[in-house]
């Protein structure tokens, strides 16, 4: 069993309130806020699927889908 590889970062922009927590604490700087203050994956290729964004998001707006699933 290798490290889980990212399949897709699902971000529900209608639930996101733009708090910036996921952006600031992502260890790989994958995420950014767009001009409407909604989070999006700017550099998904750098994601290590640590799931910290998914766990910290106060709005339950992020789901990290990995290849194994």
């Amino acid at each position, binding site marked *: 069993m290798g490290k889980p590889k990212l399949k897709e970062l699902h971000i529900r922009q*209608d*639930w996101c*309130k*733009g*708090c*910036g*927590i996921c952006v*600031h*604490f992502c260890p790989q700087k994958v995420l950014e806020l767009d001009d409407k203050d909604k989070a999006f994956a700017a550099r998904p290729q750098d994601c290590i699927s640590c799931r*910290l964004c998914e*766990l*910290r*998001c*106060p*709005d*339950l707006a992020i*789901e990290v889908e990995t290849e194994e699933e």
Partner: protein
Amino acid sequence: MAIKDYLRERFFPHMWCPGCGHGTVLNGMLRAIENLALEKNDIVMVSGIGCSARITGYVDFHTLHTIHGRALAFATGVKMSRPDLNLIVPMGDGDALAIGGNHFIHAARRNIDITAIIMNNRIYGMTGGQFSPLTGYGKMATTAPYANIDHAFDTVSLAISAGATFVARTTTYHVKQLTDIIQKAIQHKGFSVVEVLTQCPTYFGRKNKEGGAVEMLENYKNSTTPVGSQAGQVNPDLIERGIFVEKQMPEYCSEYSKIIQKAVKRK
């Protein structure tokens, strides 16, 4: 079961402010429940009143949104009549330790099998930022414009001395620990107390110039330390987090059922 199966998605986006830590507590709690693979119908979540108490509206379990400070009294009633169910009671710091302080200490003293989660943002969020028994000396609140002169409870020491048999503390920054601790608290048979330091950027953060949610989380990272750590001994200002007490004691509903058996035999 996936997290979304535990949610009442029709009520999302939820009512909490951007960056409010209460949502992260909900997040961690659902992951704990998911890891334990609990059936939705075996969980009863009871809350009082406050921003924190609104949590029951968002989960697809049996839920009771009751009155301020009295969630543990309602939960005690449910647990006594249906001891087979898992009772989870999320409370605000005001809900649990101001108006609800008496219910809290006596539920702990009885060691009834309920998981109490104290979402401690050190303020009355819902009503506009009044100080609570956890605000602390020198802190600002709308009702303490020249700084608060009340000293705060230490929730962990209070819970331990009142008799809780599982007592832990964590923060909304330490999300893996949050899930792990809530999971253990639910599994524990007896009264479990989990204090979660959770940010209210709208009132506590703004009044105390602590910045927004990101800065408040940075502060949880920098101002806490694992229980018993070297760093904590060198710097007593660091707040300890982790599990403080985990012990087995006779549980209230089990003791009560023994009493019933005795009474039935005598008839």
